[in-house]
């Protein structure tokens, strides 16, 4: 559906920004509650953190990092176009630049986050 809609890059950039934003919001709600447990119920926090360190947890954290990085980069792109409107002409190129940085920065980070799944947990 997303790709058949004739919106092109601008529409996809907007859709991804919205989806990643709502996903990060949902994580923030969870994360503030879990941090509250550090003071309120440390045992429950430790149990939850074991899930964060598990393989499934790591995959979700890598996805969270991807959402965060995309939202951050595309957010800068929006700001650039908001305050220097002539650059809106290059909104596609700016979006491709976002993806370039996303891959260059994101791949090593994803590697570090996911590596313990197959190499074991660092001590």
């Amino acid at each position, binding site marked *: 559906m997303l790709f058949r809609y004739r919106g092109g890059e601008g529409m996809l950039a907007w859709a991804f920004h919205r989806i990643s*934003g709502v996903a990060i919001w949902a994580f*923030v709600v969870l994360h503030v509650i879990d*941090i509250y*447990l550090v003071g309120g119920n440390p045992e429950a926090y430790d149990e939850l953190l074991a899930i964060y360190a598990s393989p499934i*947890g790591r995959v979700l954290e890598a996805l969270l990092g991807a959402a965060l990085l995309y939202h951050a980069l595309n957010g800068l792109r929006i700001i650039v176009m*908001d305050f220097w409107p002539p650059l*809106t002409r290059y909104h596609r190129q700016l979006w491709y630049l976002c993806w370039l940085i996303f891959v260059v920065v994101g791949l090593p*980070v994803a590697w570090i986050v996911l590596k313990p799944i197959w190499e074991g947990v*660092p001590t």
Partner: protein
Amino acid sequence: MSVPYTRSGRARPRGGGLELTIWYLMRLTGIALFVFALTHYLIVHVIYDPAEQDASWIAQVRWSSTFWRAFDWSLLMLVLFHAFMGVRTVVVDYVKGRARLLVLTGLYLVAFVLFVLGTAVVLTLPVVPKG
């Protein structure tokens, strides 16, 4: 307009007032979060591994200095504004009438609860020296 106007952000509200202030603050907090949120992710997922973290790690290492507590509290304030005002924009786009008022009230209530929980824990968690 001469430039092709495909944009992926919310158009600047006309006329000023609260909506324009929020529009500017979304961009301002966005720039700040670019630094704060990415740094936070880098610390807890890259520099330290989740496997070496637990409640006592936070008390002894992560929150052992006022600087990092202030850093994380600032991040909390920025993200509460940015995330909840962002979801507000999404809600206003998709929910109409009385349901909108209901959903937005619930949304602000959740934001307030998170403000209280997050502020309480960052202020009251005792510093436990490592050793």
